[in-house]
């Protein structure tokens, strides 16, 4: 264990970076250069701290670690409480890993308002890490909603032609969820007098209240995931966002919804979670099949990958609400894996977009000839997305379906069709962009990956393969926490069922 406040350091290091960036003065060009370097170093240091935390993380324990606890708003009983467990540790790593990649990927691409862009990104990192380490609902809410602001700006300022529409759509959707969640959190506080997440986990509220609170939280997390039918902001946001924005959006922001389900819905509202599980299955299956079919007919690369993200997140919600070991572990693994794969897929789209300035699939074709390295990287990522065994995409998907099959065979069968459709749309994308007749001359004169792009993509590709072959690296660290989560979940349901027997009927399942 470490004595000094490691989590706070990681969370607020980017803020320190922002302060220094604000102090940089001089010619525009010099400022831009220094800003970029400053942002990169800050994020790299954060990553170093995150890796340090990972090495010191005790994977055999299910308890919160590196805990920081001090009173904050004393009269209200609100504390500054941070900690990580097996469920959150990899999300912290993911955020810390993808931020420097995003900053590097924008190096030559972002030419206007460089300083503001880097500030937005560092602020985003603070909010992301803060979300995953916060153990107090107020703190969590501040970080969780704080993410919105820099992301809104990144899409709205540095985005494509329809950026304003997309940014507002994004904001509108998430705001709706946020307001409901805020009401939920206030109600929870009013009922229990506590904002402490571990305390709330141990003391579930009454069944009727759970239902309302569950729906309030669900509104927020479902939008973030995003689940069908509140997913339409995602394709637009992705299409208009700059590459780095898409990467972080797909890589980390979508995972906040899944994390929310695991941190709030299941442990705090177990009866409601069990009650609404069937509804979540239905929504997940619709998400998987519906968006996969839509992905099949897309002509815009980013839109296609965005729709595939919705389908993949459908697997995650399905896995989480099976409340089985395989389902939840698979769900967490799928989120990590999807963070890497879809992040890298958006980077890959960015690579060709930077060269040809179009995302139209039609405008490419046959580029395996002039970009063999790119074709290889894209191939592995495509296979990861398809869920081929040996890539990380397979492990999560397989475990989720295995978990689902134990709960409901029909659900598992319908969800599994997503694997067929997933293969169809990704293979067709690959075929049209990388293979095929060589007709577009400008596409065929694009240079292959440069050093910087290789440096960005290859580590992710290696991670995707490594996690596919040795998923134990991640699994063994998350499983104690998941076991604890499921153990307590079932225990609470049993207690509730015992209480409910005197009334009318126990919770379902």
């Amino acid at each position, binding site marked *: 264990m470490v004595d000094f406040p490691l989590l706070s350091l990681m969370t607020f290091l980017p803020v320190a970076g922002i302060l220094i960036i604000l102090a940089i003065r001089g010619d525009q060009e010099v400022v831009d250069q220094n800003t970029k370097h400053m942002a990169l170093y800050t994020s790299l240091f954060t990553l170093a701290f995150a890796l340090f935390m990972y090495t010191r993380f005790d994977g055999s324990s299910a308890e919160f670690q590196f805990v920081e606890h001090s009173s904050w708003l004393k009269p209200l009983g609100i504390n500054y409480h941070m900690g990580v467990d097996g469920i959150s540790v990899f999300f912290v790593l993911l955020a810390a890993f993808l931020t420097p990649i995003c900053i590097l990927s924008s190096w030559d691409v972002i030419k206007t308002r460089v300083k503001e862009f880097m500030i937005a990104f560092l602020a985003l990192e603070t909010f992301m890490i803060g979300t995953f380490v916060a153990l107090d609902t107020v703190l969590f809410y501040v970080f969780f909603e704080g993410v919105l602001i820099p992301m809104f700006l990144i899409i709205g300022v540095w985005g494509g032609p329809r950026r304003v529409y997309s940014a507002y759509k994004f904001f*509108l959707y998430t705001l709706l969820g946020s307001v409901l969640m805020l009401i939920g959190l206030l109600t929870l506080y009013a009922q229990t007098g506590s904002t402490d997440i571990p305390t709330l986990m141990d003391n579930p509220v009454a069944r009727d209240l759970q239902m309302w609170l569950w729906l309030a939280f669900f509104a927020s997390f479902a939008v973030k995931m995003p689940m069908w*039918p509140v997913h339409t902001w995602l394709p637009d946001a992705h299409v208009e966002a700059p590459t780095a924005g898409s990467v972080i959006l797909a890589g980390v922001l979508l995972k906040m919804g899944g994390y929310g389900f695991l941190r709030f819905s299941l442990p705090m509202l177990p009866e409601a979670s069990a009650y609404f599980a069937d509804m979540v299955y239905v929504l997940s299956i619709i998400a998987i099949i519906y968006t996969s079919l839509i992905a099949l007919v897309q002509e815009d690369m980013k839109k296609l990958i965005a729709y595939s993200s919705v389908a993949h997140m459908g697997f995650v919600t399905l896995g989480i609400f099976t409340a089985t*070991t395989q389902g939840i572990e698979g769900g967490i693994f799928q989120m990590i894996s999807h963070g890497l794969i879809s992040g890298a897929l958006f980077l890959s789209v960015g690579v060709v977009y930077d060269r040809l300035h179009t995302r139209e699939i039609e405008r490419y074709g046959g580029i395996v000839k002039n970009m063999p390295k790119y074709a290889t990287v894209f191939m592995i990522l495509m296979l990861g997305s398809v869920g081929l065994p040996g890539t990380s995409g397979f492990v999560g998907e397989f*475990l989720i379906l*295995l978990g689902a099959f134990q709960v409901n*065979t029909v659900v598992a069968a319908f969800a599994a069709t997503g694997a*067929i459709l997933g293969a169809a749309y990704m293979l067709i994308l690959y075929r049209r962009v990388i293979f095929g007749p060589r007709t577009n001359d400008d596409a065929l004169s694009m240079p292959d990956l440069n050093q910087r792009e290789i440096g960005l993509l290859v580590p992710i590709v290696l991670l995707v393969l490594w996690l596919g072959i040795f998923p134990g690296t991640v699994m063994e660290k998350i499983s104690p926490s998941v076991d604890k989560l499921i153990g307590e979940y079932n225990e609470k349901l049993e207690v509730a069922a015992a209480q409910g027997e005197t009334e009318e009927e126990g919770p379902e399942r």
Partner: protein
Amino acid sequence: MELLAVFLPLIAFLVAGLFGKQIGDVGAQVVTCGALIIAAFASIILFFDVAVGGNAYTTVLAPWVVSGDFDVSWALRIDSLSVVMMCVINVVSACVHVYSIGYMSHDGAKGRFMAYLSLFTFAMLMLVSADNLLQLFFGWEGVGLASYLLIGFWNHKNSANAAAVKAFVVNRIGDFGLALGIFAIFVVFGSIQFDAIFEQAPELAGTYFTFFGQDLHALTVIGLLLFVGAVGKSAQLGLHTWLPDAMEGPTPVSALIHAATMVTAGVFLVARMSPLYEYAPDALMVVTVVGASTAFVAATIGLTQFDIKRVIAYSTMSQLGYMFFALGVSAYGAAMFHLVTHAFFKALLFLGAGSVIHAMSDEQDMRKMGGLWRKIPMTYGLMWIGSLALAGIPPFAGYFSKDIVLEAAWADHTWFGHYAYWMGIAAAFMTAFYSWRLLIMTFHGESRASKKVIDHAHESPAVMLGPLVVLAAGALFAGMIFYQGFVGSASHGDGHSVEHAVEQVVEEHSEDHKIVIAEDHAEEVKGEAHTVEEEAPAAHLPMSKEVFWGDAIRVRAENDTVEAAHNVPFWVKKLPLVVALLGIALAYLFYLSKPGLPERFKAIFTVPYMLFFNKWFFDEIYDRLFTQTAFKLGNFFWVSGDQNMIDRFGPDGSVKATQKLAGMFSRFQTGFVFQYAFVMMIAVIGILSWFVFRSGM
């Protein structure tokens, strides 16, 4: 040794794939061919150690997926079944690797091609040596990937890409079934480790579990789900449409993947799961019917095709059907036997066809060939050997394996066993016919090619012919050598008395549903049948099928059709050969003696001909039913769902509503002071009167 046999191809793939630029084309060829030849020898050594010596074992490499009770490792299970497959894979693959040096000599991406071949070999080896279903699934999808990459190897061709995607997606449909089967096994057995499954299968034979809301016999459901996977990978009726299109790939690929090895993975899967299928008789019935129907339908299509590779492809599909109905009647050993002999003669035929295509400057249409036998006599001779083996003419390999398959089907004495037998006989007739149709159209008669092509036609180089000779040796001798071990009986004697003995055994064992593991059973038969005669010539593997397979294949005594097959009536045994000879004779009549006959036949039997020629319209129906529907639905959901419903009433709708509301309010802001004053006055009056009214209550 098993590490050498399995991982050398992987190393070859990595070296040739990652450092292709550095080591050059020749380097890549040397590395991959060298690795494969060593691996082939390693697997032959393994074969003698494990299958002949009887030393089955499992090597655990590393943990893979561990989640709660679900615990799976990377491991190599080395038993008779896996070493037989490893031998076939590595030997054929080594031949194909060497052959490819010659065949692909004009291609621009030789290194990449060799790397893909090695990758395929590795995945296939992982599939057969898996000791659990997840690793099998890894190999299963891995060979699918390699197949996808190799079918689409000439990736500038649209047709090749389309075929590659089709192969992958159709296989995914099969994999969907396989995956569900694996889930079901985990739910029922609590493990997906083979040993655990096999041990529990007899106890769990009576288990029912809820599937799709129905209470169903667990093992039957599992058997059928796994079979869906097998149907996809082995191109059985229903999910076969990808295989003919897969001929877009280079010919060595067709030989290795789409004839000898990958497509037999489904057969291997069912054979591997034999201890489970033995307790799922209904599933076996489905396997038989599907296999028999495939054998027949594919043969009918094969009669009418003109593309030399497609004829052989449909022939492959048909032969796979034979293997499946053999499995379905519990003749697992016979199925594996046919798998091995088929691997040799079909790879030989494909590579021979490749040699023809190579000679004819990439022409594949048999209507533009003819009279080639003088130009390429070696290829011609080798194609004869392959065709004789395929048609089942003694003493070629196919004769032994096809006969035992058909006899076992008959010996099953069930309606589906008989159905399979007659379908198999019909297919055997057609097989002989289309094989000689191919030979005659390609090699005999007048040449129908352009003069330029004919002048350029040349015999293939030694690097291509060498592997063909190796395979031809297999096609010649594999049947004789392996007969005794794969399907031979310990009691090889006069028909009737042994049949009687078997019946006795059946009676005894029908009482208790216990697996009779090979050896005991063999001894029992030996003890009870008095006319036992050991008549294994020295060239054969000197052992019975029970000793050879050991624990790898388990057959319940009452299901032992291979045993019973040795004692079927005389006409059942000889009919396949008779119809094969008839088929050959008819082909001579049609294509050599009376060349006008086929046209007249076509005119008389227009309807069946059109049906066969258009491949029973599977592609057209599927395209309408599934492909177009999927795209239409996708567009519908996108436009009508996302844009016109969700967005219209969701975010865009609320924006519009807000704007409308704001617009309404803004109308009040007219800028005229008197209006504001008027509104204020009314408001003040209103509020005042409200207060007054309230206080008055």
